[in-house]
């Protein structure tokens, strides 16, 4: 053990560089993980943080709120299904707004006041209850969506005034406005005066007391043909883009984690091969294999420990210094899970080095010319 620590002390630069390199790679993993979590929240936060725990889309929408259009009469039909407590229309559209003199793509969600579909993460102000009022995503205050600000559609000039702010409630990674269904209709007609009607995109539902969202969704699906009734969490996970983003990031994350394990494994293997003669001599003068393996594991743990500290420090610096439009939030549980996987795989990576250490034959010390042996 003493020897392992002494070696690190004498080769601080070598071990320091390795810990730094692995720290950077682990930072890459942590940062991408944080980015993924934040991106998914920005994709579907508005769906996740609205009050309807069941959402009913048209069957041809293929689980996309943007592609869904339902008949206004569907709201009453859904409300009449056993197990449904409350039902209300939910409209969604991406419109061009002018805020701070700039054209901005904005996702607009419209729901009737007091009905399902209201934002649940209100952090400031109040809900929109009157025509021309809106609750905006707090992440976009700097873009001209603060309380008291007024924004207008680029075409038609229909105006809304921000009266409240939500958190983690964006849709499609865009500034998001929660408005009343009347306001939604006004905004849609301003953007396209030729529209013959503005039907809801979906029906938002709160199940009756004692009925779970799953049971309510099943009851709606059984009672009304041609619709796709899903629980809120199903609607979030099956939203278009979510699975492709998840799988793309999974590949990058998997690759980065594999690289960490590979780099750690190869580095210690090279070290072991370089030190074979010294390790053979130590073994020959009485150091058991377990002592040598413990020394190796101590070095690996120290390098990984320093690397993790470097990675976490870099992550906090990156998140606090991030100026991108995406609000980055660190998920401690995900970090701990990733760190555990990285440590486990890295230890697996050094398994070959351990095997080489265990395989060392003390007798080779007397035949190794470099150690004064004869052959």
């Amino acid at each position, binding site marked *: 053990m003493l020897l392992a620590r002494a070696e690190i002390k004498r080769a601080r630069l070598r071990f320091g560089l390795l810990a730094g390199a692995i720290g950077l790679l682990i930072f890459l993993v942590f940062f991408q993980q944080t980015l993924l979590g934040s991106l998914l929240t920005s994709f579907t936060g508005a769906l996740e943080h609205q009050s309807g725990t069941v959402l009913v889309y048209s069957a041809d929408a293929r689980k996309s709120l943007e592609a869904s259009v339902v008949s206004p009469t569907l709201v009453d039909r859904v409300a009449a299904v056993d197990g449904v407590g409350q039902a209300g229309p939910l409209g969604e559209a991406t419109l*061009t707004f002018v805020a701070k003199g700039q054209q901005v793509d904005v996702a607009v969600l419209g729901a009737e006041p007091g009905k399902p579909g209201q934002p649940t993460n209100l952090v400031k102000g109040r809900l929109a209850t009157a025509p021309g009022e809106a609750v905006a995503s707090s992440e976009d205050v700097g873009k001209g969506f603060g309380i008291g600000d007024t924004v207008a559609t680029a075409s038609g000039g229909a105006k809304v005034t921000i009266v409240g702010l939500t958190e983690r409630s964006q849709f499609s990674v865009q500034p998001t406005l929660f408005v009343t269904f009347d306001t939604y209709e006004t905004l849609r007609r301003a*953007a396209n005066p030729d529209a013959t009607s503005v039907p809801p995109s979906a029906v938002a539902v709160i199940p009756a007391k004692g009925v779970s969202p799953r049971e309510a969704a099943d009851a709606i699906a059984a009672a009304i043909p041609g619709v796709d009734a899903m629980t809120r969490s199903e609607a979030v996970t099956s939203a278009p883009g979510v699975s492709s983003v998840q799988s*793309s990031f999974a590949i990058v994350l998997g*690759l980065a984690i594999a*690289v960490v394990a*590979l780099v750690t494994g*190869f580095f210690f293997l*090279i070290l072991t091969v370089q030190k074979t003669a010294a390790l053979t001599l130590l073994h020959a003068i009485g150091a058991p294999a377990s002592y040598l393996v413990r020394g190796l594991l101590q070095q690996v743990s120290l390098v990984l420990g320093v690397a993790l500290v470097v990675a976490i420090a870099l992550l906090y610096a990156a998140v606090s210094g991030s100026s991108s439009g995406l609000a980055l939030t660190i998920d401690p549980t995900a970090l701990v899970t990733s760190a555990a996987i990285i440590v486990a795989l890295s230890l697996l990576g050094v398994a070959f080095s351990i095997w080489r250490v265990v395989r060392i034959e003390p007798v080779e010390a007397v035949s190794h*010319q470099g150690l004064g042996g004869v052959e």
Partner: protein
Amino acid sequence: MRIALTELRRRPARFAPALVALMLLTLLLLVLGGLLDGLYNGSTGALRAQPGELLTYSSDAKLSLVRSRIDAATAAEVAKAPGVEQVGGLGVVLLGAKVPDRAEEASVALFGYQLAPRGVPSPPQHTGDVYADRSLRAHGVKLGQTLLLGPNRYPVAVIGWVSDTNFLLQGGLWGNVETWRKAVESARPDAVLAPGTFQALTVVVSPGSKPTEVAAAIDAATGGTTHTVTRSFAVDSLPGLAQQRTTFNAIIFTTFFVAALVVALFFALLTLERTTMYAVFKAVGASSRQIFAQVLSQAVVIALLSFALGAVLALAATFVIPPQVPLQLTQARAVEVVVGLVVMSVAGSVLSLRRVVRVDPASAIG
């Protein structure tokens, strides 16, 4: 060189770890590249096929085809702008399509067009007839079938096939303007446009005119109510496309980096283990250059072998992956991968150069 190849032939197991790692990385690179190409082509085909060099949107649409509206009066202004030879209206609606005998709906983009895109015949004479993109065959679409579009099941009949005309990963259907208007009326009453109004215009520029100058002239002629861009700019402005390309390229470059790392570490280890052998070679007259050439040739051979095996696996994967997944393996991508892999292998093996140069021939004799 011959010794290096002989070693590869006689002791293949020694090189197996690097070969397997690079083979898997090749598979990953080809599949990722194929997905990127498939996603790009599947998203942009309809715009790339447009006959005009320019596309005109309304200025408040932020280059979104779905949100753009160009009325008849504006279209007439565009047609009169200097340098404009021909103008055609274009409209699209994204819908789900019920295919006969299929439980799952197909995602389609129904276009109404006035000027025929590349590879698409002139607009069908009968309302309700459409040309379908061949990719829809993976969803069970057949010639002569009637597809039912949207929640109100507007029927369209498939009268022919076209290629590479998809839009935002939805299968392209190409009908006359009336077919598009009726489908919108049926499925998306909130997106209905007045007669004569289109979502965008495809603009053919007169011979000798510069497209960017004509675009500026069009926007000036309409008093800034339009935003005219080149076809390639319109393609690159499709939502999510740039981010998609950036993400995939980041993964691909990371994978190439990993390949270089694998080769570097593998040959560093191999060189370390063969120090004595290299010392003997040097003692009998071999130069560092000759020895390093051996390392390089082994790295290149391993890269090429890995690519060949990885490519076979990637081809096999195309038979297993469902046809709905937009995977397109192209020769250009394969060439990029093999060149990248060889370059990265050479770069990785260069790290062993210092160690080879430092081998002392005297150590061969103790």
